[in-house]
């Protein structure tokens, strides 16, 4: 978690968001502990200049870092029924939502946009870890379905950036149902021969990793991202042993054949541009042949 989320009260944070951040704010790297000017940290795409740790990145900055000339249109995310189970733990679920909305300025944990990457038009959806841990409830599920539908309708590739602790428990079984629901949306793209590209970012786990995060035609992971079905703590409790070094990190998944590449955030736009252009070539050829 960044310096900002640690120490500034939610209300204030919204005001300070993105471009209003004063120059004198510091970010402390969660990995090496070095202090970096927040502005430089953001300009470096949330990558630590000292140790290359890839920190979590909000959707708006992600879009800016990817789309040509920072030019894109946000897609409307569907409205969903709020608090369908009337869930309450130590806090009421609507209160948790309110806090997350105030902190992020967003409705829920996903945003999607359409624009060009290296000249190739595409739909990009980004999960926001800063919104209740990126957890997948009905809003996230509907967001992914809406983005996939848009890609399908416009004959575009779909790029999904995952970042999530898993299912949103406060929506119970309805969050679990987003696993099959999002899968159906991806099958629509597959049936139409349109590419679905996944970029796994830190962290991607639980029901998210066990559905749309692992169904990409091409799987890209950011360096050092934690990618798992069961979290390390659960596994440690079950087997009561120390876990292997680098376990469940991107590089480990690469070594075990679960991802196509581990790509530095600075190279991601170029890599995506190549992948998108190559994977769409056939679709255009098919279209021309008809």
């Amino acid at each position, binding site marked *: 978690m960044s310096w900002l989320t640690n120490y500034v009260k939610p209300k204030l944070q919204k005001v300070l968001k993105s471009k209003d951040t004063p120059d004198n704010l510091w970010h402390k790297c969660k990995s090496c502990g070095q202090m970096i000017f927040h502005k430089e940290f953001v300009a470096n795409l949330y990558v630590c200049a000292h140790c290359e740790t890839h920190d979590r990145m909000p959707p708006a900055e992600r879009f800016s870092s990817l789309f040509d000339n920072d030019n894109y249109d946000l897609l409307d995310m569907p409205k969903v029924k709020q608090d369908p189970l009337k869930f309450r*733990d130590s806090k009421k679920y609507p209160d948790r939502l309110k806090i997350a909305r105030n902190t992020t300025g967003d409705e829920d944990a996903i945003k999607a946009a359409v624009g060009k990457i290296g000249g190739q038009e595409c739909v990009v959806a980004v999960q926001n870890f800063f919104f209740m841990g990126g957890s997948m409830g009905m809003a996230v599920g509907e967001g992914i379905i809406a983005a996939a539908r848009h890609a399908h309708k416009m004959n575009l590739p779909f790029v999904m950036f995952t970042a999530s602790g898993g299912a949103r428990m406060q929506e119970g079984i*309805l969050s679990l149902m987003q696993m099959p629901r999002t899968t159906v949306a991806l099958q629509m793209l597959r049936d139409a021969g349109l590419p679905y590209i996944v970029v796994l970012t830190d962290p991607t786990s639980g029901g998210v990793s066990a559905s749309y995060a692992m169904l990409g035609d091409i799987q890209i992971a950011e360096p050092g991202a934690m990618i798992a*079905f*069961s979290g390390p703590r659960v596994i440690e409790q079950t087997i009561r042993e120390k876990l292997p070094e680098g376990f469940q990190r991107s590089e480990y998944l690469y070594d075990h054949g*679960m991802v196509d590449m581990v790509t530095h955030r600075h190279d991601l736009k170029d890599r995506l541009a190549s992948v998108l252009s190559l994977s769409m070539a056939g679709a255009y050829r098919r279209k021309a042949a008809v």
Partner: protein
Amino acid sequence: MDWQYMMTFLEFEKPIAELEGKIRELRSFSPGSGKGEVDITAEVSQLEGKLSKLLKDTYADLSPKQKMQVARHPERPHFSDIANHLFEDFVPLAGDRAFGEDEAIIGGMARFRGEACVVMGHEKGSDTQSRIKHNFGMARPEGYRKAIRLMEMADRFGLPILTMVDTPGAYPGVGAEERGQAEAIARSTDTCLNLRVPLVCTIVGEGGSGGAVAIAAGNKVLMMEHAIYSVISPEGCASILWRTNEKAEEAANALKITAQDLMKLKVIDGIVEEPLGGAHRDPERAMNMLGDQIEQSLREMAGMGPDKLRELRREKFLAIGEIGL
């Protein structure tokens, strides 16, 4: 030995157990002749009436936590019982053709009331040895990959698929993660939704999270009356949100895990009634009732073409959350 002696009683079943003990005692106290026998018979029959009412009242109004206990009852019919009782000619098929054989999920070809099909399900095991063999119904990637293999085969052969879900969840272990647990589950769910044959899934005991969904994305999703189906175990939910698993009861209430709640939320398509006092009191009858409802579900899909079956299944899942809330 009388089966009732061996029965496991749940905590909330204590009054039931006491009453049953009393009846048993009276019966064993049969003097053989004389007028005392008449009194005992009358008393036994009176107590039996009381017992049946107590069972009915208790089971009509189980809390989610109590359902959780019933769903995990060791004498509840498990996959092997169902495969033996409801299916003829069961030919078990093993292995994922890549790494190994995972006995947490058992499957094969069989005949269900005359019709050839593919059947599979989680098996929890019923004693220490078999529980270890079946890993308590917690599958590893190989289990899901075997399920995928069998489902795809059924799809090619045009055989309907019946799945029985009964798992605390997918196995959380180093090897399982190493071999792609997440991908295996995702791909298995994907396969369910891609099939062009009828797929009827029943949550028979515990439907634990992604490990359950992986073989439960069917045209018809049924739940046994006292089964549970949840995104996370109430214990797990409590330890995360309440920071203590002593709050499992609150979590069970909040999560909405019962068949009755899931029916209201339109997440499942039907509830399979259980014998009075739960499936563990009369497993044979419980399985027959399950068989009848599966047969009914298959009948409803008879005559549907392959594309229609797939389309309706996909549409059904897309509609979840849009209706019923």
